[in-house]
């Protein structure tokens, strides 16, 4: 298994380590519920070094990405991030990735860990086929990434920098120096809370981890693993690539149609237009258990005794104190409040279709100072 530069720290913290797509990653340090709740009430720090980073640079960097990705990048400012999708020619989702515009001809793509290689192949082949004048570089090995998430994230990170983080808006980033080394920080994340994603050279990421952990002592900061990351993203209605979405899923079938701009040409557009014309047959919806049990990935969904779909993600939601999930269901039964049931072992347990997100933070909960 591949190890991140922080692996030894996780072992020293007694983390439970699992194989996540070939990476030895901490799934939890103490327990998932504790780490989940700490993210909602204070702050947590995640090792996200396994994610991929690809640089696109050159006179036609913009033209390549505008063609390769579904989102319209025309109005993207320097210093702004856009979430986008990368599709196959058949319109299936290879990856949902974030696009950082660093300069007019210089972009950073942040990819999922397990799809970085497919993204790399796909974007390179699109560049070669179209003859765009730009260079790609996979810098994943040399870049470390930490996610500092929660209402106290800003107060904690402020102690490590003189930069004014108040001026950093949601889905924007700035370049700064931490430990005298260049780093990049964005106000973004995968938890539904305020927080930051921090990128720095892999060789200093351990030092930044230590400094943040120390700065967080007074703020109730805890390290958190992939277990809490999964329950946090699910409560916030965010999808997980490889589980909820894949190359056999169209962005039109999941809450990603907003990433698609049909006013421009992009790889996979023809297939999406055809699908739009013929109409989608299934849709990814939120579900909430009203009966006993917890829906899990792979469980079947029923309406009466008719099978209408399959659960893609399901868990006990610690903040909501109930069982929630995501499922693909027949489009006819996808409206909120539809009463469905989930096949849990040998029984059908009642559930209903609900609107997403399941959880939404109050915008004014950013804690500026430690709580007495």
């Amino acid at each position, binding site marked *: 298994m591949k190890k991140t530069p922080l692996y030894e720290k996780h072992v020293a913290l007694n983390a439970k380590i699992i194989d996540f797509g070939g990476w030895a990653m901490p*799934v*939890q340090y103490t*327990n*998932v*519920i*504790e780490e*989940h709740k700490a993210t909602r009430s204070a702050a947590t720090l995640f090792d996200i070094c396994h994610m991929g980073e690809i640089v696109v640079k050159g006179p036609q960097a913009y033209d390549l990405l505008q063609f390769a990705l579904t989102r319209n990048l025309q109005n993207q400012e320097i210093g702004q991030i856009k979430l986008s999708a990368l599709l196959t020619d058949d319109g299936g989702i290879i990856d949902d990735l974030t696009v950082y515009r660093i300069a007019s001809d210089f972009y950073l793509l942040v990819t999922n860990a397990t799809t970085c290689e497919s993204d790399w192949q796909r974007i390179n082949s699109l560049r070669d086929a179209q003859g765009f004048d730009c260079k790609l570089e996979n810098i994943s090995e040399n870049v470390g990434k930490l996610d500092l998430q929660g209402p106290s994230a800003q107060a904690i990170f402020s102690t490590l920098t003189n930069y004014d983080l108040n001026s950093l808006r949601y889905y924007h980033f700035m370049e700064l120096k931490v430990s005298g080394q260049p780093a990049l920080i964005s106000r973004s994340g995968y938890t539904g809370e305020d927080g930051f994603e921090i990128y720095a050279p892999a060789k200093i990421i351990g030092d930044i981890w230590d400094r943040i952990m120390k700065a967080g002592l007074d703020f109730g900061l805890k390290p958190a693993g992939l*277990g809490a990351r*999964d*329950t946090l993203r699910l409560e916030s209605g965010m999808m997980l690539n490889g589980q909820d979405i894949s190359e056999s899923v169209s962005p039109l079938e999941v809450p990603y149609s907003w990433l698609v701009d049909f006013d421009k040409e992009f790889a996979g557009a023809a297939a999406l237009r055809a699908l739009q014309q013929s109409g989608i047959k299934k849709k990814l919806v939120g579900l909430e258990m009203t009966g*006993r*049990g*917890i829906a*899990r990935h792979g469980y079947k969904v029923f309406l009466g005794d008719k099978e209408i779909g399959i659960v893609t993600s399901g*868990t*006990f939601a*610690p903040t909501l104190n109930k*069982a929630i999930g995501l499922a693909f269901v027949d489009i006819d039964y996808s409206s909120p409040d539809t009463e469905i049931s989930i096949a849990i*072992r040998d029984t059908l347990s009642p559930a209903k279709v609900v609107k997403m997100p399941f959880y939404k933070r109050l915008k004014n909960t950013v804690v500026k100072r430690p709580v007495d």
Partner: protein
Amino acid sequence: MSKQNLNDRRYSRDHEWAKDNGDGTVLIGITDYAQEMLTDIVFVELPPMGKKVVKGEPMAVVESVKSVSDIYAPVSGEVIAINSKLEEEPALINSDAFGEGWIVRMRIDDAAELALLLDAAAYDLLISEDKH
């Protein structure tokens, strides 16, 4: 550190315990080591009263946030009581696996089956090997 494995009961290799009540019935639960491995238990599915269970076969289910785990019957018999408190408070297994967190009471088919289970010392050894 998990709590000490008690000498008043026997243990299965699947981390269940069975305590002889001396009246042809046994109390069954999972070990403290097992709850520690599972962590935050959020759901327990109990068998129906009167269910006949067979040694080594799934008898109940416990779920943590991340995982679904079968509980195997350490001996064969008939379920004569279930700990229905676990339906409202599944975390009782985390806080008191050897006591308040018991799962079922069974009328044992063959009391000799108990002797085939591990004693506390043998179970200690099993979990110490598990850790390495």
